[in-house]
């Protein structure tokens, strides 16, 4: 056990487990991005604010999420 790791976090034993964890974490990150962007836009955040918080361009976050949020009935602030 590596000293800096908390005792309750198991260390990946096998390459297959470690690689599968990468896949699962990417999927979780994608799900969290969808949820967090939706939550922010429902709370009245603007596209530039969400983009800056995520560290991506306004165009990227807009392109990725705008259709979904319109379909979800979220009232979007105008792009600035």
């Amino acid at each position: 056990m590596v000293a800096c790791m908390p005792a309750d976090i198991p260390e990946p034993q096998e390459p297959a487990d470690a690689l599968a964890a990468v896949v699962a974490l990417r999927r979780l990150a994608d799900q969290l991005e969808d949820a967090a962007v939706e939550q922010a836009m429902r709370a009245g955040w603007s596209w530039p604010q969400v983009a800056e918080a995520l560290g991506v361009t306004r165009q990227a976050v807009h392109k990725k999420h705008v259709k979904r949020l319109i379909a979800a009935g979220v009232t979007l602030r105008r792009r600035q």
Partner: protein
Amino acid sequence: MSAIDHYIQAVILHGQTEARQDGSAAIEAHHLLLGIAAQEGTAAREVLTSAGLDRQAIRDALDREFEHSLGTAGVSAASFGLPAPTPDPDRRLNLGASGRLCLERGFATATGKKDLRPGHLVLGILEAELGTVPRALTLAGVDRAALATRLREVLADGSW
């Protein structure tokens, strides 16, 4: 279009719905397996069902694999209290790398297009030794080799 073309199209369409629902960026092998389990009237589906793998059981096995793999990194999806995102009902997704590979492998198990049937597509999915599907099936206690043997028997009978 032949029956198998219609079948593959239905499997991919269902896979796309599954991929949208779990927020995936592409249609992967496990989405196609769910699509196969959802198409009624095939011997392949019966083989899956008799091994305890109906659509919901496959979904549950995939969810367990997701939690298990996150747990390897000390993470739990349940520890984030965000409300579930609304899926985009119109988002068009492409086949991902694992989705394309399992179809290619499935086509290769048949002797030509005329022979190609649903069971061949399942064989193509089961051929993967690594990735989400084999991990989920192993966690669910499914014997992939026995399942493949049963599928080959059913295919040899000429069943659809």
